[in-house]
């Protein structure tokens, strides 16, 4: 189990950094190439959801939890970021890209997206 944490300004300029970090970490977490590809798309989507309608203020905090059988990415948006609706297109996309998507709202109203990608048991 390893934990990696990053926080970036809530601006589209930084999604590439998070995406690259996610892909690199996923590679070390032994995800398949296809799962890594999916994860890159999922990170893009989640980041976009969290910074939607935010005028580049605040930060997005991202933590990567590497477990033996999964990689979990926690992304917390800046104050005021919307909680994604389960009927939204973004939600449909996210749930197709990773094994599990959850949302949490902290007591002070910050929205967190939890994406879990499973590691396939490689022979």
């Amino acid at each position, binding site marked *: 189990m390893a934990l990696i944490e990053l926080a970036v300004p809530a601006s589209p300029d930084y999604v590439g950094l998070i995406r690259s970090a996610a892909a690199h970490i996923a590679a070390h977490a032994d995800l398949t190439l296809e799962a890594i*590809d999916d994860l890159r*798309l999922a990170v893009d989507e989640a980041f976009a959801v969290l910074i939607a309608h935010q005028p580049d203020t605040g930060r997005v905090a991202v933590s990567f939890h590497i477990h033996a059988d999964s990689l979990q990415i926690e992304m917390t948006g800046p104050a005021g970021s919307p909680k994604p609706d389960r009927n939204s297109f973004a939600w449909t996309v996210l749930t197709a890209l990773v094994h599990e998507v959850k949302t949490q709202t902290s007591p002070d109203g910050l929205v967190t997206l939890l994406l879990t990608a499973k590691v396939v048991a490689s022979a």
Partner: protein
Amino acid sequence: MPKNDLRSADREMFEQLAALEAGTTQHEATRAALIERHLPLVIFMARKFADRGEPLDDLIQVGTIGLIKAIDRFEIARGFEFSTFATPTIVGEIKRHFRDKTWAIRVPRRLQELGAAVNKANVELTQKLVRSPTTKEIAKHLGVTVDDVAEALEANSAYSTISLDTSSDDAPTIGDSVGSLDGALEGVEYRESLKPLLEKLDDREKRILQLRFFDNLSQSQIATDLGISQMHVSRILNKVLIHLREGLLEN
């Protein structure tokens, strides 16, 4: 025309070309006739590279540059068949196009080569394992580190950024996917804003979107289904999602 006659016709034209002074109208005409004559070879070679995200027309264009170089360099006295001589030059020119022009960011040659090796290993191992391989498996297969593979994947994704801009004119058309996508969107929020955005996608993009996100097929399943590579599916998905995300944000 029997093959031997074709070859002797080639031979005659090249002899003629060699005898003519460069720059004269006759020389130009013979050269042009030779180019035209061998265009089918260029088209044939270009088609072999057609599924890599670059429009076929561009590949034919760069392949033709290779053909012209080959015509100018061909020495009949060496006894080669022209097609044997020209093929590596044409292919070389097409490959160079991929190497030089399609990288969004200038990626060091070492990484480009490693990237190509990773792609190849990906295809081989996917077949062997009947699932997508992990980076560890790729690294072991190539005798490199996981870090190398991660770096190469990153470089490959720089490649895809530009490939996104290419149209899929050469794509096989997949019919009647529009209606079913509409059905799939039933119950999705903002579908009224989504619809005009989806209409801008071509049939194949719509189909891939539906298969991946509504039918939950994996990228490689879709790739097999459509007869394209998984990397190509990934690029198309990325492009489509960016298009939809930006479009929705504007609303």
